[in-house]
């Protein structure tokens, strides 16, 4: 990674949802400077997520631009009661990345050969110097919570989230019936809710 990128000031900023909500309100009032400010706050997180999914920096940049543009156009559809701005934004970005991934109908044999290694890779990834102490702690906490899951539940989450596979593809990859995949996903999510609830960013 380019050392200068780690020094971007916004990556060190402590971002509160109240500030994000205020920016969204300004965007609803057609204040384009709020869009720039929202970009500064969340570009890095969004780019990290979509480039991880797409494995293509050029495509990831496109998705980042599309996502913020959609946020601008649809700012009035954001409902604070339905979750934090970051959740809304990252969900838009992830969906767009998955749409691209699936539209290309990539065969995922190469991904599947890495089955079970996703979390290990992430756990051993070099720490990001630009990450705040709070962010590093949160990351460690999420990893620990995932580690607590039974292997088969963690596996379906990894394939669904980090590889972007559909439920049918996960069933094919794991050799399990579709119903079993759904059940494992639900159980995994329900088990993660409690340990991760402390990080839930309530709308303000």
């Amino acid at each position, binding site marked *: 990674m380019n050392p200068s990128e780690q020094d971007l000031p916004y990556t060190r900023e402590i971002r509160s949802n109240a500030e994000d909500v205020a920016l969204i309100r300004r965007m609803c009032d057609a204040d384009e400077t709020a869009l720039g400010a929202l970009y500064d706050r969340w570009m*890095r997180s969004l780019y990290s997520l979509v480039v*991880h999914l797409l494995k293509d920096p050029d495509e990831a940049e496109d998705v980042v*631009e599309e996502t913020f543009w959609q946020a601008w156009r649809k700012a009035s559809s954001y409902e604070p009661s339905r979750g934090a701005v970051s959740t809304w934004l990252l969900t838009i970005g992830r969906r767009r990345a998955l749409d691209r991934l699936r539209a290309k109908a990539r065969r995922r044999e190469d991904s599947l050969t890495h089955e079970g290694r996703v979390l290990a890779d992430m756990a051993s990834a070099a720490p990001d110097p630009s990450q705040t102490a709070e962010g590093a702690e949160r990351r460690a906490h999420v990893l620990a919570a995932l580690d607590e899951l039974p292997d088969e539940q963690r596996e379906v989450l990894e394939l*669904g989230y*980090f590889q972007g596979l559909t439920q049918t593809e996960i069933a094919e990859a794991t050799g399990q019936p579709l119903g079993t995949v*759904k059940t494992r*996903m639900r159980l995994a999510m329900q088990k993660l809710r409690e340990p991760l609830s402390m*990080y839930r960013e309530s709308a303000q």
Partner: protein
Amino acid sequence: MTTLSHEEAYSELAVVALDAAPLEVSSAVREHAAACPECGPELMAMEEVVTQLGQLVPGAGMNPGRSAGIRSRLVMRARTEREARSSAAPGARPDLARGVASLTGFGHRLTPGSQRAVEAEIRKVVPPQKRTRTFLSGPGLWALAASVAFVVVAVQLARVKADRDALRAELASRADTASSVDSARRAIAENQALVAAMAGPDVKIVALSKNTTRMGRMFWNPSSNDWTFVVYTMPPPKPGMTYQVWLVTDSAKISAGTFNPDSSGHAFMRAKYALDRNALKAVAVTEEPAGGMPAPTGPIVVSGSATP
């Protein structure tokens, strides 16, 4: 759209939260969840869990120059859209031809509404049965004619005034629209010029750094003499000071302008200056008293060599 039972929707919540369900299933589940007191909060909580999983993705930095470009495009696009939106008239436009007629007095006719008002006034003044008996004789005829003429003139004057006001509003609105269109055209032209200035085949790029940290770039198009300067992580200058950009040649240090970064450290400048293709040795930024100086006096804050 497919309609799901509560149990069916509940069993799909996790895959929907993960975006791993087919679109039609996802839509049906979301529609159910929007109205279901159990599935709605459950889906929301699962989506929060999904967001938390994003914490595990290793941080990746976008190329700062490209990121600055995306940011600029977004803000410019949003501004253009905002200006276009604000220039659009909210309701139906007044009839311009009618407004002109009302101002000139030529070709104007009563509208159906004003016609009805005149007829109503006539009926008030003369009930139909009485009118049939006295219409052709006596002083009542003159009174009737005077009343009708008064009402017609009053209604017509009111109409003329309303149309004149509408016309004025219309003319003002069209002036605003023309101004916005001009503004959008200028923005497009500026964007095209910017692309040409930064992406021409012989554009030279000078990377600007402080120590080893990349802080910006200068794009120089010798064919068009365009200089485009971008920095993205500049701290604010000291109070009473500003940053000044210098084009360094063997014989001179030429000022390319002053700037103050915005709150996020970004700054963007353009200049036109003819310089021999081989003259540029470096680009430097110094901190100078507000307003700038004819020659650099302060320390170099950021610089980059133009020679390979």
